[in-house]
């Protein structure tokens, strides 16, 4: 049987074999195909399409596994509808792997706790080996790696951009000495933002107000290699930040409001790159909640009058472990806070994860599959939806338009800046935007 395999098939099956570990085998062999996970997936619930049943996405891999690896599957392939690794299978793998947001809500509800995304990770690795990946994700990943290679070019650009932000920073904080340091050796905190002033200025205001000993990273925190499922490239993207943090000797790497970036740095990259970080990784909310508690920043609890709700980004919440800090911040600054139902690890995915937001041709798909989220938001009656993930915010903006929700989607830090009381000169920070 081996002799009949073409080279590309050998290669892809090799990838599958290389990914085999205990967990993978459990997940491949234990699923009863009960279909309970379908009721937990926003994509299936919104579309009713069989190919979007979570276990069906993984079933393709399972049937390949039966065909090529499991003894009984090779003996009696029809028992499992075992299938050949052909062009058609590649198409199906692509459709299954790259339309899942990776929210892992299905894992919460499966009676066995089967992690569908772990199986889809193997599917993605095979597709990466086959060169059959979403173009946008591949381009963004390569651009990020390229940036790491030619950082001197970008340093000047970033310096320039920062210079332009500092006057506003000084005005908002009322601190003539407020600054945005880049690449400052010996700083306690390395803040990793996203590309764009919207991710730098508000955080800089809070860091300055709190008197934090910080510096800004040269790199953006987002990691498209992770969405791509190319762990080797994803590790290279993350490594840019790791080596920067090591070179500066920081104690804490603080990841901005971004779900997957936090998960990658906190929970994944140490395994991918087989190293132990000499610094701790935290989400931006950990220091911010600390500042509030220690009184290092003062807030006006009445500043935000409208009802606020909070959307747990899947990668930050159930897959990252940050639930309470952002809530503590919102509770401190908003009188009328209303939880979504369900929330925390059971929160509905907005439909923007998994790199879907970066793929323009999936916009219609996202609009449709965000239905449950839109209904959930509408039920809170909130006017402001705070959420700490750029992908979620872009998706919620789309849902706001399509479902006429009449909401304002906001980063949590933006709300915090809005409510922050400037001590020096008693000048209050004006709202952003």
């Amino acid at each position, binding site marked *: 049987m081996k002799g009949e395999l073409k080279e590309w098939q050998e290669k892809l099956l090799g990838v599958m074999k290389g990914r*085999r*570990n*205990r*967990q*993978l*085998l*459990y*997940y491949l*062999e*234990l*699923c*009863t*195909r*009960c*279909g*309970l996970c*379908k*009721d*937990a997936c926003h994509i*299936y619930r919104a579309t*009713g399409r*069989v190919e979007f*049943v979570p*276990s*069906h996405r993984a*079933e393709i891999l399972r*049937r390949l596994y039966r065909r090529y690896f499991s003894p*009984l599957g090779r003996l009696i392939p*029809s*028992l*499992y*509808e075992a299938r050949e690794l052909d062009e058609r299978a590649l198409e199906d793998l692509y459709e299954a792997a790259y339309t899942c947001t990776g929210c*892992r809500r299905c*894992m*919460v*509800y*499966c*009676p*066995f*706790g*089967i*992690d569908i995304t*772990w199986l889809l990770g193997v599917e993605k690795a095979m597709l990466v080996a086959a060169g059959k990946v979403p173009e946008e994700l591949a381009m963004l990943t390569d651009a990020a790696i390229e940036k790491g290679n030619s950082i001197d070019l970008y340093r000047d650009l970033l310096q320039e951009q920062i210079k332009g932000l500092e006057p506003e920073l000084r005005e908002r904080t009322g601190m003539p000495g407020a600054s945005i340091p880049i690449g400052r050796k010996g700083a306690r905190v390395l803040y990793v933002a996203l590309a764009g002033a919207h991710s730098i200025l508000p955080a800089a205001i809070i860091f300055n107000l709190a008197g934090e000993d910080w510096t800004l990273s040269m790199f953006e925190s987002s990691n498209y290699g992770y969405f791509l499922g190319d762990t080797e490239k994803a590790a290279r993207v993350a490594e840019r930040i790791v080596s920067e943090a090591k070179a500066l000797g920081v104690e804490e790497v603080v990841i901005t409001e971004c779900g997957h970036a936090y998960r990658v740095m906190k*929970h*994944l990259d140490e*395994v991918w790159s087989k190293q132990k970080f000499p610094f701790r990784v935290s989400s931006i909310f950990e220091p911010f909640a600390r500042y509030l508690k220690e009184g290092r920043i003062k807030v006006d609890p009445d500043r935000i009058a409208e009802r606020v709700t909070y959307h747990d980004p899947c990668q930050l*919440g*159930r*897959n*990252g*472990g940050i*639930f309470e800090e952002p809530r503590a911040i919102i509770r401190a600054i908003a009188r009328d806070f209303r939880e979504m139902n369900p929330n*925390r*690890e*059971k929160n509905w995915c907005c439909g923007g994860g998994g790199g879907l937001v970066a793929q323009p041709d999936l916009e219609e798909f996202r609009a449709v599959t965000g239905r449950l989220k839109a209904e959930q938001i509408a039920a809170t009656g909130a006017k402001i939806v705070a959420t700490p993930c750029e992908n979620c915010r872009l998706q919620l903006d789309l849902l706001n338009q399509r479902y006429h929700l009449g909401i304002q989607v906001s980063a949590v830090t933006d709300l915090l800046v809005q409510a922050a009381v400037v001590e020096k000169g008693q000048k209050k920070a004006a709202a952003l935007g």
Partner: protein
Amino acid sequence: MDAFSFWVAGVMVYVAVAVLVLGLAWRLYQWRRLAASPMRLGIFPKPRGGAKALRIVADTLVFPQAAEVNAPLWLAVFLFHLALLGVFVGHLRLLGRFPEFLEVKMSESAHLAGGTMGIVLVVTLFYFLIRRFKSPSKELSVPEDYLLLILLLGVVVMGDHLRLFAEIPFSAYRQYVASLLALRPEFGPEIAASPYKTALVVHVLLANLLFIYLPFSKLVHFIGAFLTNGIRRS
């Protein structure tokens, strides 16, 4: 014992039990010889210590989350497994006598409890089977799923048939199992003379087939469920 009974309710039982035990051991070995994932795959929040153990047991035995998203299916699955456990315990009585007070209670309630559980099994199995002929379960299912359900239905229907209609005293079954344990399989006069003898042999035949296939099927989830549920909370 006639020849057919001897081979099916005698020799084949030994083979089936051996395949079951060795097969399960082989499956466990297949899993455990591979390295565990270096990635922590659990979801948050992560309970610790006693709370974690409790959570894993609850997840495995009750899987309460499933009830939130699909109550009817959860109920069917839960009742099915409960009945399965009950029937399993009931069958243990064949191996020997329970402590006296239990023995009395169990033999008093055997007909009602066994009958009820048997009916629950048939009904839930039918439900599982019919469900798989409807989309999206249909597309999701592979022949293994139907095969197992039909096999189980066969075992259960024959079991119910014996439970509800055969007038064979329990002591006769016990005698038969004792003869199996003594490696001299034999039907006593009550079974040999009963018109239900064939039904019994078919029940045992189907159970043998189930035992032989079980270690290689998705039914190993009865062991795996504890392991994967452990991973989810770690």
